[in-house]
């Protein structure tokens, strides 16, 4: 089913996923179609960790694309997700970021919802002294807040506006499920804190950034100097079958001169930490990987860099901006020492991150260029034009794999 829009005038470059036309980052019609087909389509979007709503009637707000939702635990202990949008006049009726409430009362006309999003009361439903009121045929149960389909796995909650979404496990595919379960293997997550930043760039630039190990090995002085992520280390880029999800996997190395670091203009042999506790890792996961950065389409990056763990949720704010909402976590059974490492290593991440500032800044510059040159194409040929898994970092295969899927979902036709 095709919605007729100005998109019909747009054709994807003939090179396919090895090119990305700049208009995908700034065109309002492209954005609208993404909201419809991707964020409201048959995909699982991350909304919250169960640890944020441990008790009956706890709730927390989240977004899927640009749509606000409420994530609740009802009186039976089940998790519900519903649109934060009154069925009456569309008011965003839940006004608090989080809390505990048996009822949500819309401030405008006091339509009242329970913790599952069901409409349970309307003032003057029967009118006043026999006058006015709703039609006797009006059924409250037909006018609840729009319910979403919910899936939770080992403490992580996903939701979808589209009930035709496949089961979460099938959606992730076996390889990506493996990386997901490596982190969420049953230990009970504990929330350590939040950070948020609004970055003036299209959400896809962020998603691509975490599928692109090539940049990490040249841009991030801090990472490459202290050997946290560098192309001379044993690494891999892996995707699911569709190409929409990916994982970057790597292992720590030393601050030494070798063939790779000689070529890295940003490698700084002279930089030394006054307090190396900042990056001292403790082995926590099976295997020898020390970094796994997973992009789960369409809205979350799951971060494990040494001992700093976070869900980075992307909330779209029009074609030209998105919010990056970081939820840092550890696990209930962490030792005080491990917990302290997580707090220290969070210095690398977030709006003031010793590593992530580079990305936020470069993403803003990417948008600045893309939106004023909409008819130019980005060239993605590092590592050839393949979209297959690689056992190295000198590649853009993960970004191409994403665009292979994106072109299909968005219904773009190729030129030529």
């Amino acid at each position, binding site marked *: 089913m095709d919605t007729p829009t100005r998109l019909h005038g747009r054709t994807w470059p003939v090179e396919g996923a090895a090119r990305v036309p700049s208009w995908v980052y700034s065109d309002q019609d492209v954005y609208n179609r993404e909201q419809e087909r991707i964020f409201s389509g048959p995909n699982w979007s991350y909304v919250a960790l169960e640890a944020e709503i441990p008790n009956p009637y706890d709730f927390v707000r989240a977004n899927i694309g640009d749509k606000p939702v409420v994530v609740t635990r009802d009186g039976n202990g089940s998790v519900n997700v519903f649109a934060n949008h009154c069925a009456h006049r569309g008011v965003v009726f839940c006004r608090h970021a989080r809390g505990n409430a048996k009822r949500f009362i819309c401030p405008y006309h006091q339509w009242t919802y329970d913790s599952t999003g069901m409409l349970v009361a309307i003032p003057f439903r029967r009118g006043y002294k026999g006058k006015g009121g709703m039609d006797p045929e009006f059924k409250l149960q037909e006018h609840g807040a729009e319910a979403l389909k919910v899936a939770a796995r080992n403490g992580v909650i996903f939701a979808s506006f589209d009930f035709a979404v496949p089961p979460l496990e099938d959606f992730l595919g076996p390889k990506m499920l493996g990386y997901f379960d490596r982190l969420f293997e049953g230990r009970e997550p504990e929330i350590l*804190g939040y950070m948020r930043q609004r970055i003036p760039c299209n959400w896809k630039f962020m998603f691509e950034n975490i599928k692109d190990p090539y940049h990490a090995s040249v841009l991030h002085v801090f990472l490459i100097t202290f050997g946290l992520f560098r192309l001379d280390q044993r690494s891999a880029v892996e995707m699911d079958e569709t190409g929409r999800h990916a994982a970057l996997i790597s292992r720590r190395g030393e601050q030494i001169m070798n063939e790779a670091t000689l070529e890295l203009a940003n490698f700084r042999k002279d930089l030394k930490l006054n307090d190396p506790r900042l990056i001292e890792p403790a082995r926590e996961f099976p295997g020898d990987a020390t970094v796994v950065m997973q992009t789960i389409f369409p809205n979350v990056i799951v971060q494990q860099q040494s001992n700093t763990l976070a869900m980075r949720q992307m909330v779209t704010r029009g074609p030209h901006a998105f919010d990056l909402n970081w939820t840092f976590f550890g696990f209930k059974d962490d030792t005080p020492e491990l917990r302290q490492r997580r707090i220290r290593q969070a210095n690398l991440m977030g709006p003031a991150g010793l590593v992530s500032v580079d990305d936020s800044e470069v993403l803003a510059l990417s948008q600045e260029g893309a939106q004023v040159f909409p008819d130019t194409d980005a060239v993605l040929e590092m590592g050839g034009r393949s979209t297959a898994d690689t056992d190295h970092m000198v590649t853009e295969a993960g970004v191409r794999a994403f665009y292979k899927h994106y072109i299909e979902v968005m219904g773009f036709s190729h030129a030529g």
Partner: protein
Amino acid sequence: MLAEEQPRAPVAPKAALRELHFEIEQLNSEYARVLDSERYEQFPDFFVDDCLYRVVPRENHLLGLPIAAIHCESKGMIKDRVNAARESTMAEPRTLRHFISNVRVLEVIGEEAIRAEANVLIVQTMINRMTDILLSGFYLDRIVRSDGCLRFKERLCIYDSLLLPTSLVAPV
């Protein structure tokens, strides 16, 4: 509302308190001058060796969550933070300006330990853009006298809006 402790009546006599209040104002003004003029190498000297410096969203502060946007638990970590801001971070050039006001002395414990707070507003100016607000918030301080100077044993910068514009590059 902030869940801060109620101030206890300061024990210092009135004139001494006025003097102390003035000294803290001076400390904050110097702090702002050093950061606004990007003399980052001088920044660690505002702290004693065994110190805590954190920049924390108010949300985490109120919820009692330990994660901070900037977390330094020693003068060494503060040095690493300013070195990174200068040497290893790729960021667009910007000018920051601190406005520190509403200084309050919360408690004076003997001659040596002072608990104080102050409001802070920081504006940011970048190329081709007009001046924007970077953050507003307040400082919660533990100040000690060392070598005749007031220095921070602990400085928490608690910022109001969880959502920050793009990035926070330098200490604030």
